[in-house]
């Protein structure tokens, strides 16, 4: 047998063992998920004892297929995307052993939802400008400030938080990274309504919120480094899910063209097929990138996928509204709601058009991503900086 075959045989055996001891038909979902975690079958690329087996990431697909075939429950990954995509890899990379043991299991099983407290009204693209202050008080940090663009904050048990711990040093050096308890009385969550009518995000106000020093992630002053690792993982997650052909915005348009001949216009055909080609090439690019990164770490190349994804999603939904004509003038509902997850499918074209506008802003604007590609991939000179070598408190704002 090849190594590959040996690994798969071993995984099959482990899955079978799990299914034997925990019959999905009769086992409580949470019990099953905890057992799956403990069997190392949660995320096989994580270390043993932390839900994984230290294998290449790609093998998880095989495990998931076996489990799905047996009717096993899943952890509803979209509901806990921030925990899985951002918090978990960061905790794995920078957490203490105790933090890893405490947080990863309930994160993965979905018992504890996570959110992210990075952006502020004055620190968007310039995330390193965060002004939320954390001041040490013995073994505790006292945090004051305002965060925005926090999805799931009202559902979350924990947050990853970037805060300024030293305003007297240059801005990149004065931040630290914390795990913040969202049930702390100093944390107030207010819905932030968007142009879609919904409040998918929140504003979070921190007023003397207290965080034990044991919940610091990485060294004091190392917050920028830790946050960057988080964001790299986020961008891969955002840009990377290409799936099958037409499983993206283009699928809605293609479906409309196929099933509603009355919408077809010869003058729209070249744009339709251009977008189809672009969507499919983007999917193949994502596949190629995943093949390249299969064994490696997320790199700046992932920024390109996110750029393309944002542009295409916006172009396709904009085209779709024109194609729909009269129907494109109507909207489903402006009522403010607080959805649990962002899901473009099952929504009307108008919602998708408006929501897609955020794709080039959230998780790094397209402008910032172009800077990253230019500087880190193409090695072009960095922007002239006025804020690098002076204390944060002295930067004009």
């Amino acid at each position: 047998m090849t190594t590959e075959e040996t690994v798969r045989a071993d995984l099959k055996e482990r899955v079978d063992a799990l299914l034997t001891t925990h019959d999905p038909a009769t086992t409580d979902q949470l019990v099953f998920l905890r057992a799956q975690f403990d069997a190392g079958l949660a995320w096989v690329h994580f270390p043993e004892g932390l839900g994984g087996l230290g294998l290449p990431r790609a093998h998880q697909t095989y495990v998931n297929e076996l489990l799905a075939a047996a009717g096993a429950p899943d952890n509803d990954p979209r509901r806990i995307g921030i925990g899985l995509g951002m918090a978990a890899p960061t905790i794995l990379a920078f957490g203490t052993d105790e933090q890893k043991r405490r947080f990863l299991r309930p994160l993965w099983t979905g018992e504890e939802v996570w959110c992210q407290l990075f952006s502020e009204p004055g620190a968007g693209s310039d995330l390193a400008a965060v002004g939320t202050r954390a001041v040490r008080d013995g073994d505790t940090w006292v945090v004051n400030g305002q965060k925005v663009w926090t999805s799931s904050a009202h559902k979350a048990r924990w947050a990853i938080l970037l805060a300024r711990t030293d305003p007297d040093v240059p801005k990149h050096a004065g931040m630290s990274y914390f795990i913040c308890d969202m049930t702390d009385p100093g944390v107030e969550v207010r819905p932030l309504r968007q142009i879609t009518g919904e409040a998918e995000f929140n504003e979070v106000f921190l007023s003397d919120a207290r965080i034990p020093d044991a919940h610091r992630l990485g060294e004091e002053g190392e917050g920028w480094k830790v946050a960057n690792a988080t964001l790299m993982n986020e961008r891969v997650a955002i840009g990377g899910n290409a799936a099958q052909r037409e499983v993206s915005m283009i699928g809605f348009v293609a479906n409309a063209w196929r099933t509603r001949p009355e919408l077809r216009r010869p003058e729209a055909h070249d744009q339709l097929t251009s977008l189809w080609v672009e969507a499919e090439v983007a999917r193949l690019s994502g596949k190629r990138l995943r093949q390249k990164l299969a064994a490696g770490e997320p790199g700046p190349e992932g920024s390109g996928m996110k750029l393309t994804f944002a542009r295409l999603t916006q172009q396709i939904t904009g085209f779709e509204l024109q194609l729909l004509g009269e129907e494109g003038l109507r909207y489903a509902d402006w009522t403010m709601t607080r959805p649990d997850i962002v899901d473009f499918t099952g929504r009307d074209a108008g919602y998708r058009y408006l929501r897609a506008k955020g794709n080039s802003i959230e998780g790094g604007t397209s402008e910032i991503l172009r800077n990253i590609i230019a500087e880190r991939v193409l090695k072009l000179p960095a922007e002239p900086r006025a804020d690098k070598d002076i204390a944060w408190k002295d930067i004009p704002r």
Partner: protein
Amino acid sequence: MNDDVNLLYTDVETALRESVSDLLTARCSPEKVIAVFDGDREIQPKLWRSLALDLGLAGLLVPEERGGAGASAREAAVVLEELGRFAAPVPFLTSSVIASAALLHAGDDRLLATVASGERTAAVVVPFSTAPNDLRPTVRADGQGALNGRVTSVAGALEADVLLVPVAAQDGVELHAVEAGAASVTPVVSMDMTRQLADVDLDAAPGTRVVEAGGDTAVRGALELGAALIASEQLGVAQWCLDTTVSYLRERTQFGRSVGGFQAIKHRLADLYVTTESARAAARYAAATAADEDSDRHVAALMAKSYCSEAAVRAAEECVQLHGGIGMTWEHPAHLYLKRAKADQIALGNPQAARRQLGELVDLPMPPAGSTA
């Protein structure tokens, strides 16, 4: 093609713009316009009354001898620029431009005069997406002259006292006037709530025939004028987006620098400036040729609809993007302009439909689909 046409603003037009702008500054705050999206339409009737009656805009396009202000499409275009700049939720385009233009074809001026005076508001009952060359009446008269049929996504119907309904008749299209109360007018949740649409159902509704067999000419001409002048509204939208974005980025700092000083941003704003100025040339030409009944007005209308539709959407999209997160919020007015721009793009024939029709007019026809091996 008229090569002596004045593409600038006359002093009269500039004065009119100022009075409209002053009124809108005082009465049409972004907060109140945003509230319209939540169904709070309180701002609407008073604002329209001020514009229609106090400023006398209701009958702007109607000749003085027929009860109006006797101005031309040039002045109406300037009004629309300002209405676009404020995303104002008033039925000027639907009543004072499109419906009034249709009523100019009526044999009898009584209805026109009440619309021109601002006493009554009217709307032509077609889907707002209808291109001027794509009129397809769905309403029919029964033996007694009562009207039956359904027309969806009609702009201006909610505000209208009287509905002007194109009716398919044996020898063409007739235009019938129906009291709004005699029809079922159902509000539609619309992409652009500042021009909320409605579905209109007529169930044996009594109507008065105001234009006989030439009704299709009347309605097509009215829709064409609408397409020519909505370009000025789109210009106003683009102008607001450009101005607001430039101001914001001059102030906003990131990385210790004004965001407006980053070259990639500067270049995009420079391109947007050029696009907006080009849209102005296109919109002014459409308005001026419409005002002169120049033979090039048909080409000018399609050209302006094509160019200004794209310009406004691009400006609004850049406005949201370059504002960053704040531009995605409900509280910031940017979304009003995005929604208005997107709806206006689709309204009265989308840009691709306009270009296809333009091709016919300038002898650049679309060939049949069979034209490759």
